Structures are given as C-alpha cells and as structure tokens.
C-alpha cells in the first residue's frame, strides 16, 4: 500500500495536515518561534545597513545587493526547515535515549517516518516570508529584470538549495549512529552556513573553498544570487552535481548508520 511513492505522498499530505494541526495547538510556540526569528533578521539587516552608511560598497556589493543575497539564503533554508527539523532530534537524543527504534518498526521508509514527525516546523514559515520580502524589495530597488530562463530557474534553485541544506544536516545528524549524539557538530555546521548569507568575496580563499566545495552552502545562496544579479553562470553550472553528490554522501552515511544501529537499554 504505502510501498509506492504515491502511498508515501498521500501519507505525507496527511501528516502535513497533522503538522499544521499541531501548529494551531501550540500557537504560542509558533508565535514565539516566528517572532524571535523576525527580530534576528531585523537586527541582521540593520547591522548590514550600519556598515553601508560608512561605505558605499563592500567587495563590489551594494546594500540592496547584500540584502538580495541574504534573502536568497533564507528561501532554501526556510524550505528545508519546514521538512527536516526532526534531524536535530536525531542528533540530540533519539539515538542516545534509545527512541530511534520506532522508525524501524513501521512499514514506512525510516527517513520519511523520522522527518514526517515534524513536518511544517513554524520557524520555516518565518524564514520563507522574510526571504521573499528581502528578495522582492532588493530586486525592485536594483531594478532587476530577469530573463525568462532566470525566472524559470528560480524554483529549481531554491529546491536544490534546500536539498543541499537537508543533505548536510542528514550527514551530520547520521554521525550520531556512531557517536550517540552529534549536536555540537550540527551546531557548528549551522553556524558555518550563516557565512553563506553574505558575499563570499569578503572571505579568505580558504573559507571560500570550504563553503563552496566542502560544506557547499555557497550553492544555496551566493551562487544563485550571483546568477540572478549578474547572470554569471560559473558556479551555478555545478549546482546539479553538487546537489546530487551531497545527497548521495548523506544518504549512504544514513544507510550505513541504520544497519549498525544499536538500540540502547532494555
């Protein structure tokens, strides 16, 4: 029944509904989550604004361009956030407390089973909304006039970016099959990902390399933004390959983790 992709999809819709239902049940949590996020992005925007009152451009980037990039980085992050937040629980406690077993005794793909437990995490909506506002405002400010191809690629760019975020998270969360918890690694990687919200040209080449080819967050923000702003396709051509390889690495580690899983306790 649910062995088919269609079955999983129907189940996803149902569980998505449950997730939304949960949102209304924990309204305060939702408001706090979104509110805190808005404050954070507001401060970020303000800080960037303060810098630009002193200089007209940084490494060739103007104020609206930087905000455009920031917006670009938030869209895939928000999309990813809506679906994969449960990976944090995996890295934090599911292995440690021996609770992970429950995903293995249901006739559903274990990864789907895990993620579906927290579909539509409220923070994701905030990131998507703010990202959209920033991109639209900055785009209008810059008088951006995308070509038909650029318009057509907007959605794939966001989806690939979200997949890269998801893959990196899955990779580091899967380490907990070996190390029991991998929360610190997850936190570090998330902090590194924040760097990708600003122009890569600001950074030392080694950090630029890291963000492009090791933890490929550049492909979730910088590469799409540069493409949409200037039409430069140097990096963006690698996006499909990078997305594919990231997913491959994450899923193989996840699968190896599953087969060595040891449920603790009685």
């Amino acid at each position, binding site marked *: *029944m*649910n*062995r088919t992709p269609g*079955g999983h999809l*129907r*189940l996803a819709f*149902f*569980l998505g509904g*449950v997730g939304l*239902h*949960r949102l209304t049940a*924990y309204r305060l949590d939702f408001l706090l989550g979104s509110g805190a996020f808005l404050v954070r992005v507001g401060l970020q925007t303000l800080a960037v604004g303060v810098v630009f009152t002193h200089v007209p451009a940084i490494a060739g980037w103007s104020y609206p361009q930087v905000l455009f990039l920031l917006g670009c980085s938030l869209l895939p992050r928000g999309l990813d956030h809506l679906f994969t937040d449960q990976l944090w629980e995996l890295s934090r406690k599911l292995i440690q407390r*021996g*609770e992970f*077993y*429950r995903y*293995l*005794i*249901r*006739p*559903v*793909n*274990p990864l789907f089973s895990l993620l579906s*437990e927290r579909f539509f995490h409220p923070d994701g909506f905030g990131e998507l909304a703010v990202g959209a506002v920033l991109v639209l405002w900055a785009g209008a400010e810059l008088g951006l006039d995308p070509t038909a191809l650029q318009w057509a690629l907007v959605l794939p760019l966001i989806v690939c970016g979200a997949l890269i975020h998801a893959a990196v998270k899955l990779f580091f969360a899967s380490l907990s099959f070996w190390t029991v918890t991998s929360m610190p690694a997850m936190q570090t990687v998330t902090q590194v990902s924040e760097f990708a919200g600003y122009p890569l040209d600001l950074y030392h080449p080694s950090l630029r390399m890291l963000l492009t080819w090791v933890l490929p967050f550049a492909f979730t923000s910088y590469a799409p933004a540069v493409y949409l702003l200037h039409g430069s396709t140097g990096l963006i051509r690698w996006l499909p390959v990078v997305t594919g390889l990231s997913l491959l690495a994450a899923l193989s580690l996840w699968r190896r983790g599953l*087969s*060595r*899983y*040891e*449920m603790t*306790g*009685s």
Partner: protein
Amino acid sequence: MIVAEGLTKDFRIAERRPGLLGSLSTLLTREYRTVRAVDGISFRLRAGSKTAYIGANGAGKSTTIKMLTGIMTPSSGRCLVNGVEPYRQRRENARSIGVVFGQRSQLWWDLSVPDSFQILRRIYGIPDAVYERNLALYRELLDIDALGTTPVRQLSLGQRMRAEIAASLLHDPKVVFWDEPTIGLDMVLKEAVRTLVNRANAELGTTVLLTSHDLSDISAICDDALVVDGGRVVHEGTLHDLLRRADRRSVVFDHRGGPGAQDTVLRIETGLPGATAGLTNEGRIRVDYPADAFTSRHVLGFLLEHFELADCYAPEPDLETVLRQTYRGGVPAARDGGAV
C-alpha cells in the same frame, strides 16, 4: 513462523578509565571490549504459538527481540519471521508484526491517542472494518476513550501502556513481540491485556512472543517457553514440560519438640543421602530432594518415623522455583534461606 539459526550479537564497548586522567587517556587511546549478548541461539516457534521468552536480566532477551523485530542486525547467524529476514526487509517485516517495549514509547509524543491511531491506520492501510472492530474491543477492555485528547507525553505510565498495547495490535499483526508489556498496569488492566492477546491468538491465530518480569503474565498467556541463560537456549518446549523439568521436589514440615534445627537438618541429610534441608523464613524445615532418587512417599515415611510432625505439605514446583534453579545451574532453592 519464527526461526532463529545461530543468532549472535556482539557489542563493542569502549573501556573508560576512571578519573580525569583516565578520561583524558581514553580520548587518545581507546580500548574496546567485545561483549557477546546473544551467543548463537537457535529456535523455532510455530505459527499461532504463545511463547514466553524467559531469562535472567542480561540473558539477551531484549537483544534477541530487537533482532527479530528488525531493529538491530545480528553479528552472525540469522532469523526469519514470516519467512522474511527482518533487518534486511524491515518494511516487509514491519507490516506483519506488532511491537511493545514497555520501557519505551512508539507513539507520537505530542499527539493524542486518537490522532496517533489515525496515523497508524493510514500507515498500515488498516481496512475500516478491522479498525472499527479493534477500536470497539479497546473501548470495552482498555477503556481507551478515557485517554481522551491528552497528548501522549502527558499520560501516566499506565495510560500510555494501554495505548501502546492497543497500537501494537491495531493492524491485526501476524506476530506480536511484547517486551515487558504490563509495566505500570494494575491487576484489572493486566487481566484485560491478557484477555486481549489471548483473544487475538484464538480468533486470528496471532503468534505471541512475550517477556515479562511478572510470572503471572506468563502463566496467563503462554503455552510455550523458551528459556535462555548466558546467551544460550536452555529450554525450548511447553511451559508444562518446563515445570516438570524440576528435578528436585520438596517437602515442608513443622515438628514439635525433639531435636533443634541444626540436629534435624543433619539427621535428614544423613538419613536421605542427596537431599538437602534448611530452615524456611516461616521457621519450618524444608527438605529438597532429587526427584529421581526418592518419591514423596519415601520422604514422608522417613519424616514420620523420625520426627513428631505437626504440619506437613509438598508444594507443587512453581515457575519461580524452576527458573531460579535453571538460572543458577541447579542450586536448590532452600539454600536461599541461608539457614543451613
């Protein structure tokens, strides 16, 4: 239905040295020790059987169940459940089994029980008729409606266990694995849980594998017993045969006047070679004797002849006695009193 062949599971455990220096040195050079939790066990349970999986703490019961349910992969050997290797075909296997780990929850932590059941209904594709029938049964026996719309995380242990039990049977599984399913349940609910599983077994032919510290669960549900000790199977057969395996019987008596306890014990042990005697907690004398050396008539005759008996009885070998004897490699239970 359930087959295990040379099923083995090793765990690699990192040795930690005590103290700050110790933990620093573990950071650099880590030593591992291999612990064999399950040591090449083989057994075969037929479809529709109700088997108690019995063993002392650390005997490898839970580990075996985790392999049978597909949660963990064996280090070597293999097992089959409904003709499927559980850890290789997890989803295939999951469809036809129901699982309860009394110590852990498998329900959706922040959802209510009815919401969880709705999800399970879709996950397993449970037909409406089956779902309604089972729900009616849970209403009648487990008073499941009383759990209301409280999120699972706010339920008491007993309430949660009722939901766990129901969730494990909701999709009419062919096999149920219940590891300590009656934790936190009162007598009435225990009785209901037993009725529930016995009914599933009688009406649907559900195969049951159960572990429980509550021996009355075992007597009320199971016909068969699988006893493991030190990671190996020491008994595979009916519960009845397990009880008959008791190779030592006992007689308990009170006597008036006559010699003191020490002397009595000495006289019995010399008069009935092979028997052991000791003082019970109630201040009676308990005689344990090998079933193949004496009959109870023989022992009673001896006692009547030498002592002035005030009261005397020969208890049935019970599960607890037999298990205690099995776990300890046949040490007679009377020695426990420590009065010898």
